[in-house]
């Protein structure tokens, strides 16, 4: 094992690592549901970048990157979107239930 | 030519970065919303410069998708602002009364 060369892949890998930290901080400290979900998606972007670095370093056989991790990231982006959409719907329903319980007479 | 186009891309991105810092500082939501439009034109400019510079057709497609979805997102943001302003105006005018 030796230190990685400072190239584009390493640079984006480090960025991915930083983004995971930033996203995690947001998930832990934010109280609003939307903001937590946002932070979760920021974290996801960082994880995907780490996969991108694995793909870039696995370049070979005439490809600019290993296609398998890239395909995984594409699947991941789509599933992350679906999870976000489901979570948003849950949050909205929760807020609607809260409203119904709070303002029985007023609304 | 390849290097010249990459240099152009770096310069455009640097200029866009300065503008991005400015619009994100606000103060109004309209200012902040401009971040998406700024990246919609600036980010697309960077992508097409890199695409033609490296002769990568796929990057032109990526730029096309980026332009389309940035357009979609900036319109959605603007519509949201209009919607929120309408809701606020309605709440201001007369709570309880039916609006005309």
């Amino acid at each position, binding site marked *: 094992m030796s230190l990685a060369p400072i190239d584009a892949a390493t640079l984006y890998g480090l960025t991915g690592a930083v983004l995971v930290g930033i996203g995690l901080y947001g998930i832990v400290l934010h109280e609003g549901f939307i903001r937590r979900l946002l932070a979760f998606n920021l974290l996801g972007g960082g994880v995907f970048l780490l996969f991108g670095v694995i793909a870039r370093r696995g370049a070979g056989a005439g490809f600019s990157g290993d296609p398998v991790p890239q395909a995984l990231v594409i699947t991941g982006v789509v599933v992350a979107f679906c999870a976000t959409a489901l979570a948003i719907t849950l949050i909205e329903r929760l807020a609607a239930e809260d409203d119904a319980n709070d303002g029985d007479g007023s609304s | *030519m390849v290097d*010249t*186009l990459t240099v*152009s891309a770096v*310069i*455009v991105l640097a*200029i*866009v970065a*300065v*503008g991005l810092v*400015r*619009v994100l500082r606000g103060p*109004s939501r*309209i*200012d902040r*919303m*401009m971040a998406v*439009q*700024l990246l*919609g*034109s*600036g980010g*697309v*400019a960077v992508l*097409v*410069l890199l695409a*033609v510079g490296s*002769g990568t*057709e796929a990057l*032109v*497609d990526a*730029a*096309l998708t980026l*332009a*389309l979805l*940035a*357009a*979609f997102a*900036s*319109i959605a*943001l*603007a*519509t949201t*602002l*209009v919607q929120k*302003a*309408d809701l606020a*105006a309605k709440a201001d005018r007369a709570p309880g009364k039916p609006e005309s």
Partner: protein
Amino acid sequence: MTTIVTLFSAVAICAGIIFFLAGTVGLLRFPDSLTRLHALTKADNLGLGLIILGLLPLSGSFSTALKLVLIWALVQLAGATAAQLIARLARPSGRGK
């Protein structure tokens, strides 16, 4: 012939960069949101247009050139529409006709 084309590209791309610069200067210097929006949507879209104009002779194929023009048209359309929506928002009478 090729020198003329290269020169044309270089001039157009440089002019595009200058317009991007002008847009950012506008963002930094203009006093309120609406004038800043004006600077952004006008100058940056023109900048992108000039850069794409400069790239057209270098693009190598007709389909790529067509896509480049389409990209510019999309950005232009979005800029104009968003500016309209926002301008409506800033007018004191709300959304007038």
